[in-house]
Each structure stands twice: as structure tokens, then as C-alpha cells.
């Protein structure tokens, strides 16, 4: 076999190589001086690190955490968890309601425009005029405008 990589040796020394490959690495190490030296060095490190097993001083963090939670996080209002189907139904109903309102607004919103308090009389008149054109000649729009716009097929006489 080729020399195992450093990483394979680290895993092998830590006992984290699967049985089959571990056997192969083990046989190689038995016959390769360089890899054996490396594996032994890693083994010493592994053992030495394992000797450091600090025991935390007895302490319970929960009371301090509970106090901080009470101080820092205002109690949250718990909303009921809606089942998926109910959530979809609510979304569809909301979309329908918004659609209905939008349709009504379109239907009625293009009627008489609201008066603009304090606006210039000429500006308001011009607005009403253009609005009437857009609405395809509602009552009150003069025939001359249609003629001017070429809607009647008549020629405009100056």
C-alpha cells in the first residue's frame, strides 16, 4: 500500500478508521519505519491530550439564565399553531377579500373624481376634461373634442 496520508494516520491513531481500512493501515505501519514513527508521535499527542480532563467547578447556570431571560425577554404572546390546510384556507380567503375590494374600487373609483379643495379652477377643469376623454365621452363632453380627436371621422374646420 501507499503511505497513508497524515489525516489517515490521525484518524487511525484516534481509532476512527473502519475495521477493514484500519487493518491495512496497521499492516503498513508494521512494515514502514517512517509511518510507524509518525504514528507513534501522533499516539503520544493523542494520549497526552486525553490526560487533560478538566472538571467544571460545581455550578448551575440555570438561575442566572432564568433571571436574564426575565429581564431581557418580555413574555411573548403565544399564538396558536395553525395546521397547514387552515393556513392555506385563510390565505385564499384573504386573497379573495382583497380581490373583491380591489374590483369594487376599480368599478367605483373611476366615477366622479373628488373635488380638490382650493385648487385652481382651470386645473380642475382640465382634469375633468381629460378624465372625460378617458372615459369615452360621458355626458358633458363636447362633440368638438371628438371631432378634434378624429373620433367622428369629420374634418376639423379651423
Amino acid at each position, binding site marked *: 500500500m501507499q503511505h497513508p496520508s497524515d489525516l489517515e494516520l490521525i484518524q487511525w491513531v484516534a*481509532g476512527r478508521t473502519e475495521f477493514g481500512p484500519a487493518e491495512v493501515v*496497521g499492516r503498513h505501519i508494521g512494515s514502514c519505519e517512517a509511518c510507524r514513527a509518525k504514528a507513534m*508521535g501522533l499516539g503520544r499527542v493523542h494520549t497526552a491530550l*486525553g*490526560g487533560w480532563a478538566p472538571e*467544571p467547578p460545581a455550578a*448551575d447556570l440555570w438561575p442566572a*439564565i432564568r433571571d436574564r*431571560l426575565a429581564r431581557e425577554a418580555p413574555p411573548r404572546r403565544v399564538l396558536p399553531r395553525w395546521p397547514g390546510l387552515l393556513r392555506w384556507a385563510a390565505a385564499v380567503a384573504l386573497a379573495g377579500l382583497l380581490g373583491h375590494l380591489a374590483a369594487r374600487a376599480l368599478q367605483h373609483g373611476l366615477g366622479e373624481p373628488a373635488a380638490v379643495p382650493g385648487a385652481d379652477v382651470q386645473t380642475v377643469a382640465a382634469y375633468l376634461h381629460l378624465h372625460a376623454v378617458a372615459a369615452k365621452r360621458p355626458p358633458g363632453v363636447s362633440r368638438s373634442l371628438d371631432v378634434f380627436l378624429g373620433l367622428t371621422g369629420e374634418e376639423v374646420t379651423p
Partner: protein
Amino acid sequence: MKHDDLPDSLLVRSIADGHLDALEPLVRRHQDNVRRLAYRFLGRWGDADDVAQEAFLRVVCAAPRYQPTARFTTWLHRIVVNLCLDARRRQTRFVAADPPDLPADPPADVLERDETVRRVREALDSLPERQRMAVILHRYEGESHREIAEVTGWSESAVESLLVRAYANLRRTLADLDANSEHRPPENRPSAVQESEEKDRAAS
């Protein structure tokens, strides 16, 4: 069912639903592991406890985003590791004024062992912080490369490279440890290394 009996993932779900009392069993279950992990990286129990407290508070904030596909400890370690790295950066600014805790004077009969522990701590402390974190997660938390990558947010290849460099550095720093001291072989280490060590001792 009482909270104490619930698995971690259900407790997190419960916290996400606003039941903050579900945090208590999580804290009691994992606090020592979190404190030890932070202590190994930061070197002071006070800092480790601060990190642990903050980590559990962050569990509350992050609970709605928890996906039970990940092991809870992997998810928790990700929070702890980020806090540790932040704390370490702050710590290095004040290290001269406030040196890390050293173990209390050891009794004479365990002098040798504590000398080894002191050397190990110094060797780990001399590693660059990413190498140190990779070794701590690998050796003490038993995490695989993939888990370390998941916990730290580093790529798997970066983790592999960090581990190789870290262990090479430790091998150099701790090279003289074995000559005069006896070390217990690790429980799960393949016998070939132990046999090689015995051969080496016999030869010397």
C-alpha cells in the same frame, strides 16, 4: 409528559413555541459539556461560564430556525464556537493584564500528570485559534471532519488541513513528553501503535 423526559429537538420546538421553561432541562443536560468546551478554548472558567450563559440565551432566539435534521449538540456547538472565537478576540486585547487561570498547586503524587497537563495546555494555547478549535472539537468532542465543518462553518478541506497542521505542531511541541513519563493508551486506539510504543520502550 414532563419537559425533563423530552428529547432535545422537542424541547427546542417547545421553546420556539414560547414555552421558555423548556430551556431549563436543556441547560441542565448540556451546561457542563458547553462549559468544558469553552474552558478548553478560553482557559478560564469565568469566561467559559459567560459563554455558556450567552449560548443558552441564543438558543432561545434561534429556536424557531432550528431544523431537527441536525443533532442538537452540533447546533449548540456552532453557537458556542462562534461565541468562543468572539470572546477570544476580546480576550487577546487584555491577556497581559489578566492571565488565564492555572491549575491549583498539585499534590506531590500527581505532579507528573499535572506537569503533562500543563504542557498540553501550553501546547494547545500556542496553536493558532482555528487549529486549536479544530483539535478541541476533534479530540475532546469526538467530532468528525464533517461535523467540525458544520459547527465552525469552515469547509471540510479547510478542517482537514487545520487538523493536519495542528497535530504536526503538537507532535513537535510535545515530542519530549513520552521519554520520561508513562501514558495510558487511549481506550479505542488500535493495538498496532500500542505494540509499537512497547517495542520502542523495550528497545530504548
